[in-house]
């Protein structure tokens, strides 16, 4: 057969013609391009059922907690915190640990009772200052930390309508609110309380202190920790309340800073003008500082009784939590 007469359509190929002579290739065929190729199906849609079991309430709550807290460490797969926010949290955390190298230096040079010991050693004033000192912690660090953490915590759900993915699932408003609250408190606590704990324990380690030292200072440490915990709770309450009333993370952040710095400034001006410290009862920071001074047994900077600051703190927390709860109650599932 001449080459040009090979019948390609009939699946008789040149290979057949050449090798199809009783050597086992009689059935051999080759893929031959046809004039019209059929299109293959790339996407096959198949419904796949799932028969797994859904976990209990704590698993759902832990998922909310994990989503918000892990996001600080890695944005992959969890709530995204802006890289600058994460950097700021890291800087604040490292800054809050600055007394530790000073303690190390103090023990390294044998500065017993000297400048370093006085400035950074464990005593009532320094324990109070580690969490409640105005500069730099409550002027530059803790309010800023709170503002960036609470900023979009609930307001983002309002803005993006993501409250629907929570409340159309078996998650109650109580669970949602408490897990958001816990997430913020843990992040703040990690920086504020953990740095306080690290400061105290490193003092013991660097100076090789014994049980007697521990017995002397532990009650002070615990009181300071209580004061720090009250600070974390109060800042979380106020911050989350602000986050819940807005769709803007900027509003919540700037609102928080305004409350902390604004009330402090106004109270200071009133003190300078009228010579009374009573107005400090409206400043969250001063109420915390006053209560902390009482807890650690150091002389108070305020003329009014500590009970007023305590009551004021309770009122601030109550109002904030009431606002938070009522605003979360208003979050919609069907539309926002």
């Amino acid at each position, binding site marked *: 057969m001449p080459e040009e007469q090979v019948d390609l359509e009939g699946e008789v190929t040149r290979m057949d013609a050449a090798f199809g002579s009783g050597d086992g290739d009689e059935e051999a065929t080759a893929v031959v391009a046809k004039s019209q190729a059929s299109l293959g199906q790339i996407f096959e*849609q198949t419904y796949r059922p799932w028969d797994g079991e859904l976990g209990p309430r704590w698993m759902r709550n832990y998922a909310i907690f994990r989503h918000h807290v892990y996001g600080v460490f890695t944005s992959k797969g969890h709530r995204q915190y802006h890289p600058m926010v994460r950097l700021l949290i890291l800087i604040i955390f490292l800054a809050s640990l600055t007394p530790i190298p000073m303690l190390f230096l103090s023990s390294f040079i044998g500065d017993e009772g000297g400048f370093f010991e006085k400035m950074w050693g464990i005593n009532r004033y320094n324990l109070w200052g580690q969490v409640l000192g105005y500069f730099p912690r409550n002027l530059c660090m803790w309010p800023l930390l709170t503002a960036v953490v609470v900023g979009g915590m609930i307001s983002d759900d309002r803005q993006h309508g993501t409250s629907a*993915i929570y409340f159309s699932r078996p998650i109650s408003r109580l669970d949602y609110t408490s897990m958001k609250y816990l997430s913020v408190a843990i992040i703040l606590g990690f920086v504020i309380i953990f740095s306080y704990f690290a400061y105290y324990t490193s003092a013991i380690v660097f100076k090789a202190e014994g049980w007697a030292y521990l017995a002397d200072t532990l009650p002070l440490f615990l009181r300071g920790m209580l004061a720090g915990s009250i600070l974390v709770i109060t800042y979380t309450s106020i911050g989350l309340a602000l986050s819940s009333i807005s769709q803007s993370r900027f509003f919540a952040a700037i609102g928080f800073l305004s409350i902390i710095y604004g009330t402090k400034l106004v109270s200071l001006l009133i003190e300078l003008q009228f010579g009374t410290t009573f107005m400090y009862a409206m400043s969250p920071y001063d109420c915390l500082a006053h209560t902390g001074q009482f807890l650690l047994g150091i002389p108070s900077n305020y003329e009014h009784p500590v009970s007023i600051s305590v009551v004021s703190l309770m009122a601030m927390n109550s109002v904030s939590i009431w606002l938070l709860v009522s605003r979360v109650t208003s979050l919609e599932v*069907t539309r*926002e």
Partner: protein
Amino acid sequence: MIDDDSLSELPIITAKGLRKMYGPHLALDDINLEIPRGAVGILGPNGAGKSTLFKCLLGLITTTSGEGSVLGYDIRTQGEQIRSKIGYMPEYNALDPNLFAVDHVRYAGELLGMNPKNATQRAHEVLEYVGLKDQRYRKIETFSTGMLQATKLACALVHDPDILICDEPTNGLDQRAREFMLQTLNRTVREGKRSVLMSSHVMDDVQDLCDSIVMIHKGKIVIQSSIEDLVEQVDKEIEMVIWGGASKMEKELSSIGLETRRLGRVIRIKVENDSTINKALKAAVSAGVQVRQMKEYEPDLEDIFLLVMDKLGEQIKGTEDLMTVEHTGGD
């Protein structure tokens, strides 16, 4: 609780005398429902009470009076169990734009109590199912409207729910995306044997997918029936396309006692008996008009909806009147 296949004929959703009041405003009034398995369309104009009904069924709001159950769970006391068995696809945007699609769907699964490993695996499966396999690792903020809707559907399907509630699932979608969404929902019902409750203003969508409808108006159920039965209940009509004097023709038909509906050159005449066609043709001769086309008219869901709304005194010319920018995607 309904788990046994032998109980599959039982209604999945029931309600008896359900009422919901927001202060003095009556949002749902004496709702009596029996929704069977399969695909059911929930229809009604804006503010009719569809969203309130969904919220009641999800156990999110307390009813003022009456009772109801979803898959055998009491809507007043067992909202948590109901929401574990239901997948809800909200009408409005409900996605975090900063997350990857796969992470969002996984998180949606974890919020139901799935462990992270299962939720991740399932997220991949459902994203493939809704056609987003290649977009799994894209941030949601880069998604088109169709992809956002598909992601919401994936979030709702992640735990393989018994009932899928879709609030306007084809909102803002172009023709191709709309067809794919309906095909996906259809497959979920026919292949996955799941039930779908869908609200929509697009009657074609409801007709394509659903076997039966529930129509709500001012908080009351006005129709609850299969689409097939409804079509049969509607009066038969013949449709004529008239040239050269449709108004004249309309008058002529009215004068011989025929009931008509006119849409420009198209006149639909109610078929009363076998002589109606002859009468209509004679009327055309008398009016001196051309009959360009004449055929038996088959009513669709849109017609039924408009007829019912007309009877209820609503001034709706077409379902487009019910749509907002969100429905049309701004087009």
